[in-house]
């Protein structure tokens, strides 16, 4: 069974970490825009750039809205791209419930801003090729997503 990048023999080609500041809506999205630009410049196919950037954005927004300060790590392997997002926030109590479309714990003020439709995690699941969430109450959250490359360099 495929177990994400941990169980893989590939060695990383490139890695970069981004700091995400909680509740900073003004600069939210900067990491994902940077990742998008970087992958584009490296010459990855448009489809994979888009998928990775969308997932990075969703994950980034989750940290900004619910988590405390966190970190997003982009790692490029020969056969796939890996995103890891870690924060030390309140964690997710029931991961399976959170994965359901429309489920959201967003307070009304976020909903007023147009967030909290309960589509973030399902959207990440849809756009990534492999996804894992490790979380529990007061343990913070680690989201790990992989994107497989079609044309391997």
């Amino acid at each position, binding site marked *: 069974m495929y177990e994400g990048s941990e169980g893989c023999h590939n060695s990383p*080609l*490139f890695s*970069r970490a981004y700091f995400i500041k909680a509740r900073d809506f003004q600069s939210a*999205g900067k990491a*994902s*825009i940077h990742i*998008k630009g*970087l992958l584009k*410049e*490296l*010459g*990855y*196919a*448009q489809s994979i*750039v*888009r998928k990775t*950037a*969308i997932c990075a*954005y969703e994950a980034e927004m989750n940290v900004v809205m619910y988590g405390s300060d966190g970190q997003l790590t982009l790692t*490029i392997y020969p056969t796939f791209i890996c995103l890891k997002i870690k924060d030390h926030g309140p964690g997710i109590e029931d991961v399976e419930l959170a994965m359901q479309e429309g489920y959201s714990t967003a307070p009304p003020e976020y909903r007023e801003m147009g967030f909290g439709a309960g589509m973030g995690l399902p959207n990440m699941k849809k756009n990534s090729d492999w996804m894992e969430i490790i979380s529990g109450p007061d343990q913070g959250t680690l989201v790990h997503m992989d994107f497989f490359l079609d044309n391997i*360099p």
Partner: protein
Amino acid sequence: MKIGQPPQHFVDINLERCNGCVLCMKVCPMKAIRVTKDEKAHILGTCIDCGSCISVCPRNAIESKTSISIQSLKSRYTIVTVSPVIYTQFGDEVMPNEVITVLREFYDQVYDQAYIHELYNLATEIYIIERRNDPKTKWPLISPICPVVNRLIYHRFPALLPQFLPFLTPGEILAREVKKKALEKTIFKPEEIGVYQITPCSAKLINIKQPLFENSSFLDGVIGINEIFGKVKRKIGKITEDAVYHYSGGIGIGWARSGGEIEGLEGVRSLAVSGIKETIKYLERIELGLLEGVEYIEFRACGEGCIGGPLAVVDKYEAKRTTERLVRMFGINKRVKFGYVKKLYENGFFNAGINPENFSKPNVANLKASLERAKEIYGLWEFLPQKDCGACGSPDCMTFAEDVIDGLQTPDRCAILNMRR
């Protein structure tokens, strides 16, 4: 002609006046300026002619090469088309018709472009309504009017190229029509007729030399508003002629400022963005798929729209006030008939001949090589002070690292590392 190769730009640095400060380099959205070892600024090929650097230079060393002076017009029969921005330059007491009347003293024919804008709005509506239920269409459609935004998308957001509204710009449509008319009605040969546009836009010329859509432009050149402002101003009010040369309503004139184009789109969910920084921000959002529910987006690289263009004379906020007044005065009702525009639309009056070469940017990047390069760049960047001071002559530490890896810079140019040593 393929844009980008050979790279052309029409912003020029006067090396005698340039003292090698880094203001222009820092403000360039494309990171296309370097201050090299001779302590002068130089522009690279990725310049998109936005003109951000022109206004920031404290020594007026940056000039736009766009404009042609009246003396140097070579054609025997000179036609000019007029961007509505010029109507906003002489205060709110001067009517568009007066401006055209004065311009007719200098040129053989003068045509108002604002009228085409109203046809264009209606055609855009038709195009959008036709495609509303087509699942293949990617939304939002992007306005193809601003030459700077066109180039920005070409260089930085090639994935958005298919989202352009595939129409010729109103300036090109008008130039095509007036040229056709002049050939029919006058005795001049095609090479003797010159069509020029009076514009506030420093990037218009690149649209003529290297058009994104067509293979060649219908315009022969561009005249900056600053070039003729004084001449027109002196004559305004002194010429009386009982003729009407200006037909458009408020919508067509309103195109001078940001939001004018979408103002004329009825029943279309649209958005207007102006300013190069905001434009980039929104293009990033479109590329991420975050701009939902918008069908048409109007981008203008200059703040407040075309009235903020580098070749305009009056400040953009004053011009905006005049524009608003003119728009109210002429009213925002449509003056063109649906049936007429529909017929033009079906006959391909608006369609741009898409140059496929410009729309299929080949992805030749070698992933392995580019990853190696990125690793080297980031490795070097970690080692740099990351103060982004620009003293080395590259806009920031990341670009400096790229330049070093590409052989344009040497690591010993970093002032802060030298200081620490």
